[in-house]
């Protein structure tokens, strides 16, 4: 009979109480992990989206551009500097951009837009606009035509829900239409016929064409081949105006960008704004994107860039989003805090009950010669066992849910989706794969447990043996 065996038997002497305690720990851990994973997964996704479709991990800018993002604060970005930056081992790609505002007009509608002058070839490794071109779009006409075709009933219902949705590939389309792999060969040709979209990517020397965001195209009612007029203010106050043909429509996963972006070759943008040879930023993508590598890379790059330029991290570039996430994160933490508080009270309740019930037994054990530290050890071990059972069960049960949620993220449809998009979020809730946050949840539970254990140990040390034996 060692301490472990004794503790083991003790926890099963009141099976129900043990199970209730372990179960409450289990539920706390389970729900906290799922909540955390969804929350962190969404942030992760949002940041990735905005970084990969827009900001990049680091940008090189003229000193004042960040506070005053106007063309007058642009800089001359020569090939030498680009090469120098690209030579860093962690830099995957670096591209110049010229970014400015304009008013877009089409027919009778106008909309403020962001004109992004990009290097069409280089940008393939950065914002990957070429991969975001819309291949299918469920326009009203497309849906009307599709309804007359032989399609599964379910798909016809889903068509209405996903009205106006744009797809950059067949995978998402099939998923949203409730179609499986084996339907693909029958149904895909039908969609190709009525809902497909011919899109073209930008070419370096093309000074007449642009690509616009899907949200913007919806707003202005524009499609491929239509004309868009841009009016704005150029470098040093010159006026800027141009007329372009829409060559492609891209679905950018960040609705904030999707609704206002117009891409054109950087030289075309320079011409439009009269900013020859100038860039507003050099956008840098990284190989290793963990915080530590980013900081190290930034340190190296800071040494090589001219003094008039500065580096801006993705956090600075997306400060608004970072702040929003921080606030959201805090409210999430408070929720989890409340959850744990409830659990802590539950655990304390059972611990108090257990201590009261066993007061006499403890007194007998101390009387016959069991040292208090040994007794406290057995009791601590019991609580640890119960707690760990709950924690482990919670962790194990959450794993399949979290992993599934990462591979098949929850997607919102219809109204719910547009509501999310209105707020500037992609209507999708992926979970974050198990990470440090798993460890933290476990640590929090262990802290609660240690408080309960500490309390029990104190009770044992303060036990009045004579009074307790009488009881």
């Amino acid at each position: 009979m060692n301490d472990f065996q004794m503790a083991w038997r003790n926890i099963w002497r009141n099976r129900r109480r043990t199970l209730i305690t372990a179960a409450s720990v289990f539920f706390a851990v389970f729900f906290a992990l799922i909540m955390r994973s969804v929350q962190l997964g969404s942030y992760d996704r949002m940041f990735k989206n905005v970084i990969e479709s827009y900001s990049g991990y680091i940008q090189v800018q003229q000193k004042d551009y960040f506070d005053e993002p106007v063309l007058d604060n642009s800089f001359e970005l020569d090939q030498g500097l680009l090469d120098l930056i690209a030579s860093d081992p962690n830099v995957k790609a670096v591209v110049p951009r010229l970014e400015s505002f304009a008013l877009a007009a089409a027919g009778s509608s106008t909309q403020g837009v962001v004109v992004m002058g990009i290097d069409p070839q280089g940008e393939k490794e950065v914002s990957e606009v070429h991969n975001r071109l819309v291949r299918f779009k469920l326009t009203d006409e497309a849906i009307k035509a599709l309804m007359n075709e032989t399609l599964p009933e379910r798909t016809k219902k889903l068509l209405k829900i996903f009205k106006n949705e744009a797809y950059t590939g067949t995978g998402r389309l099939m998923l949203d239409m409730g179609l499986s792999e084996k339907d693909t060969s029958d149904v895909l040709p039908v969609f190709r016929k009525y809902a497909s979209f011919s899109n073209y990517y930008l070419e370096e020397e093309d000074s007449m064409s642009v690509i616009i965001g899907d949200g913007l195209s919806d707003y202005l009612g524009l499609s491929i081949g239509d004309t868009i007029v841009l009016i704005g203010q150029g470098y040093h106050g010159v006026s800027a105006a141009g007329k372009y043909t829409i060559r492609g429509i891209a679905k950018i996963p960040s609705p904030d960008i999707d609704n206002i972006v117009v891409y054109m070759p950087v030289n075309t943008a320079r011409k439009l704004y009269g900013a020859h040879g100038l860039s507003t930023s050099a956008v840098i993508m990284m190989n290793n994107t963990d915080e530590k590598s980013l900081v190290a890379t930034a340190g190296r790059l800071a040494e090589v860039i001219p003094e008039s330029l500065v580096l801006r991290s993705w956090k600075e570039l997306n400060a608004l989003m970072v702040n929003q996430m921080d606030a959201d994160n805090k409210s999430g933490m408070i929720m989890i805090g409340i959850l744990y508080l409830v659990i802590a009270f539950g655990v304390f309740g059972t611990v108090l009950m257990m201590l009261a019930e066993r007061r006499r037994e403890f007194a007998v054990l101390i009387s016959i010669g069991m040292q208090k530290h040994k007794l406290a050890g057995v009791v601590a071990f019991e609580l640890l066992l119960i707690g760990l059972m709950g924690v482990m069960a919670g962790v194990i049960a959450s794993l399949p849910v979290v992993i599934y949620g990462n591979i098949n993220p929850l997607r919102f449809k219809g109204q719910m989706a547009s509501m999310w998009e209105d707020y500037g979020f992609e209507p999708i809730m992926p979970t974050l794969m198990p990470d440090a946050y798993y460890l933290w949840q476990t640590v929090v539970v262990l802290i609660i447990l240690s408080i309960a254990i500490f309390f029990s140990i104190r009770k044992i040390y303060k036990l009045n043996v004579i009074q307790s034996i009488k009881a």
Partner: protein
Amino acid sequence: MKVIEIKDVNKIYNSTEIKVHAVNGVSLDFDQGEFAAIVGPSGSGKTTLLNLLGGLDLPTSGKILIDGEDLSKLKSSQLIDFRLRNIGFVFQSYNLIPVLTAEENVGFIMALQKIDRKEREERTWSLLKAVGLGDRLNSRPAKLSGGQQQRVAVARALASRPKFVLADEPTANLDSKAAKTLLEIMEKLNREEKITFIFSTHDPRVVKMARRVITLEDGKVISDEVKKQSNDPENG
């Protein structure tokens, strides 16, 4: 040879407004091999005196020496260790650890003493046999009657080879038949193994079996008589 020397011991409880002189100037000696009963009306200080002897409580004044060692000189953890090595306890009821079998309850105290497994098993077995429970080794306390539980408690008290065993009203919760059996076992162990027993009781039949009877009243020893001859339990 004296095992216990009590020298002018007082125990005063000051906890409430009323000062209770629970043990009042008691001086007593106990020899090896005694079979002594402490009797007296309720509230006379029997439990208090036994607690002082067992080192569960410290006297307000006076000295208690066990084999010459002054209990009040020991730190609390040393006192626990002292009890483990020197004193066996039998309480009124619920003595046993509910999750352990009879065998494990007896073996437990020897495990605390770090006695090796083989010796533990042998001694446990012979002790449980001696208290008439050789066939209930694997029963947990809940499966034993009150009398059987008290007999396991006696076996446990002896397991550590203590200098003496203290029992505060060990038969209080037993019917007269079980009480008689328990006392007979104690008496036999005392006679054959020279185990020192000091117990308190209200039960006149138990008192009759004692070879020394100490009577308390209001915390004072009012009589201390040693019977010349060991009683034959059958005539009790």
